[in-house]
C-alpha cells in the first residue's frame, strides 16, 4: 500500500510531461490547419475569424505555383515507377538467385545510397547530369532520385522477399509455369504489400525534396512545388504567411491522400495469407 501514492505521483508527472511534449508537436500542426483559412494569418496561432477561402483563391491564380504542383507530380510519379520496378526486380533476383557475394553487393549499395542523394555528392551529380545534357529536364530529377532511393528500396524489399517461402514459386513452376509466369502470377501478388510500402516511401521522399530539383532545374516551368513555395516570399525575403499556409496545405494533401488510399486498399501490413 505504501507504494500506491508513489505510483500515482509517477503517473502524474509522466502524463504532464507527455502532454507538454504532445502540445509542442501539435501546435505547428494546429497552426497549419487554421492559418490557410485566415485572411490575416500571422506566425502566431489564431482561430480564423472570419473563416475564408480567399487565400486559396489567390494561390490558385498563381500559375507558376500550380504548374509546380504538376511538376512535383510528374517527378514523383516518374521516380516512383522507376524505383518500384527496378527495386522489385533487383530485390527478387538478389533474394532468389544464387549470385555469389549478393549480400555484400546489397550492403555496399546501401552504404552508398546515402551518399548519392546527399548534398555531399551534389557537385559530381551536377557535373554528370550536365555532361549527359540533361540539365533542366524532368528526367534529370527522376534519374537522380531513382539512383539515390534504389539501394534502400532494394534492401527493404529483399528482406521482405527473403521472408516469403520459395515454395510459392516452386509449386507454380512444378505445376507448369515458366519462371516469368511464376513471378507475375504468384510471387508479385505475394510481394505486393512490400512493394506498396516502398512506393509510398519513395513518393514521400521525392515529393518533399528541395535540393536536387533546385540545383538540376533552371526554368520556372519545370520547378516542383518544394521550390515554388519560395514564390510566396516577398522580394525582401519575408514570407507572405497567408498564401504560404494555403499553398503548404495543398502541397501536403497528396501525401495524406496517398497514405489514406494505401491504408484503405492494402492496410500497410507486411504479411498476408501466409500459412506456415
Amino acid at each position, binding site marked *: 500500500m505504501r507504494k500506491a501514492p508513489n505510483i500515482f505521483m509517477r503517473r502524474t508527472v509522466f502524463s504532464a510531461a507527455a502532454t507538454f511534449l504532445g502540445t509542442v508537436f501539435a501546435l505547428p500542426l494546429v497552426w497549419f490547419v487554421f492559418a490557410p483559412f485566415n485572411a490575416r494569418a500571422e506566425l502566431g496561432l489564431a482561430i480564423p475569424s472570419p473563416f475564408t477561402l480567399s487565400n486559396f483563391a489567390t494561390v490558385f491564380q498563381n500559375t507558376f505555383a500550380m504548374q509546380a504542383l504538376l511538376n512535383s507530380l510528374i517527378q514523383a510519379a516518374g521516380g516512383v515507377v522507376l524505383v518500384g520496378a527496378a527495386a522489385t526486380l533487383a530485390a527478387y533476383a538478389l533474394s532468389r538467385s544464387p549470385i555469389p557475394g549478393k549480400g555484400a553487393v546489397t550492403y555496399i549499395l546501401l552504404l552508398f545510397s546515402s551518399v548519392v542523394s546527399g548534398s555531399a555528392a551534389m557537385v559530381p551529380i551536377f557535373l554528370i547530369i550536365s555532361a549527359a545534357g540533361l540539365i533542366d529536364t524532368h528526367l534529370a530529377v527522376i534519374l537522380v532520385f531513382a539512383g539515390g532511393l534504389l539501394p534502400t528500396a532494394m534492401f527493404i524489399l529483399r528482406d521482405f522477399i527473403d521472408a516469403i517461402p520459395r515454395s510459392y514459386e516452386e509449386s507454380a513452376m*512444378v505445376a507448369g*509455369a515458366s519462371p516469368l509466369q511464376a513471378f507475375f*502470377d504468384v510471387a508479385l501478388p505475394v510481394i505486393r504489400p512490400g512493394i506498396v510500402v516502398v512506393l509510398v516511401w519513395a513518393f514521400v521522399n521525392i515529393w518533399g525534396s528541395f535540393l536536387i530539383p533546385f540545383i538540376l532545374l533552371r526554368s520556372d516551368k519545370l520547378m516542383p512545388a518544394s521550390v515554388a513555395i519560395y514564390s510566396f516570399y516577398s522580394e525582401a525575403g519575408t514570407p507572405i504567411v497567408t498564401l504560404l499556409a494555403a499553398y503548404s496545405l495543398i502541397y501536403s494533401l497528396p501525401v495524406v491522400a496517398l497514405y489514406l488510399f494505401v491504408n484503405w486498399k492494402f492496410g500497410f501490413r507486411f504479411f498476408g495469407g501466409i500459412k506456415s
Partner: protein
Amino acid sequence: MASVEFQNISKSFGAFVAVPDISFQIADGEFICLLGPSGCGKTTSLRMIAGLETPSSGRVMIGGRDVTYLHPKDRGISMVFQDYALYPHMNIADNIAYPLKVRGEQETRRHARAKEVADVLKIGDLLKRLPSQISGGQQQRTSLARALVYPSEVYLFDEPLSNLDAKLRLEARGFLNHLQRDMGMTAVYVTHDQAEAMALATRIAVMDKGRIVQFAPPIEIYRRPATTFVANFVGNPPMNLVPVEVSIGEGALLLRANGLQLAPIALTDVIAKAAKSGRMTLGVRPEHLRIAVAGDQNVVSGELFANENMGPESLVTLERGDNGRVTARIFTDDEIKVGTSVHLAFDARHITLFDDSGARIPAADER
C-alpha cells in the same frame, strides 16, 4: 505414368555433401517412400526429381528421358508441398486450376475441372474461399487437388501430412492409399514417419546420411531390416536391440548378455564368420515379446521401467540395469508395478542377428 531413375546422383551445398552417390530405379506405377530422419537427404532427392535442385553430378531420368537439366515445368510432374504453398491471393478454385491456367486452358473449362477434382476431395463447396479462410486439413486437400488436376508422369509428395493433426493424418493417409490403388500412379513420397511409409509404399527406401540403406517392400523392411539403423527406425516402437557377446560351442552359437537367457542358435557359414568378432546385436520386435512362463527358452529379464496402457495393448518397458531398455507390446490386463522384476520371452524364429558392423546376418532358413 512413367518410371524414374537416379544414376549416380550426388549433391553438395558448398562444402556440405547432402547426397554422396545414389542410384535407384522406380518402375512405372510404384509408390515409393523415401524414409529417414531429418537431414538424411530425402527431401533433396525429391527436389532433384522435381528439378528444384540440380544434381552436382549424375543423371535423373523420367520415363527413360534425361531430365537432369530440364526446368521443372517441362518434366511432367506434380508435387504436393509440406507447407501446401497455396497462393494466398487466389481463391480455392483458382488455386486448384492454376496448373490448367498456365497450360492455356479456358477459364470455364478449367473451373469445371477444378470443381470435379474438388468434389472428389470433398472441398467442392469451398471454391470461392481464400486459403486463409479454410482449415489446415482443407488446405492440405486443396494442395492435393492442385496436384491431381492435370495428368502427370510422376507425383511427388514432400511430407504432405506432417502439418495435420493425428486424426486428419490417418484419414488423409487412407485416402492417398485408395488413390494410389485407384490411379496406379507413380509416386515418390518423402516422410520421416515410418507408419506412413509402411501404410502407403509399395517399396520403401530407408535413407541415412544421404545413402539408401535399404530399398525393399515394407514387409521386407519390417521382417528383414538390413541394418540396425533400419531396425531402429521402422516399427512402433522400433525393434529392441541388445548388444551381446558371442562364442561358438558344441556346433552352435552361444549368446551372452546380462539378464538374457538364450537357447543356442544353429550355426551357418555366415553366422560362424560373423561370430569371429565376438560381438553381435540381438534384435527382437516389441510385438514378439510376451510374459515368460516356466519352460521358455529365450528370456530377457529386468525391472519394470514403465507400463503404458494404449487401450488394446500395453507398452511394457523394462530396464536391464545399465544394459539398456527393452520394450514389449503386450496384450494383457494385468497390472504390473514399476520396479518389480519382469521376464519376457520370445521365440527363436523371431530373432534377428546383426554383425559387428550393424549389418543383418541372414537366418539359417534363408538363402
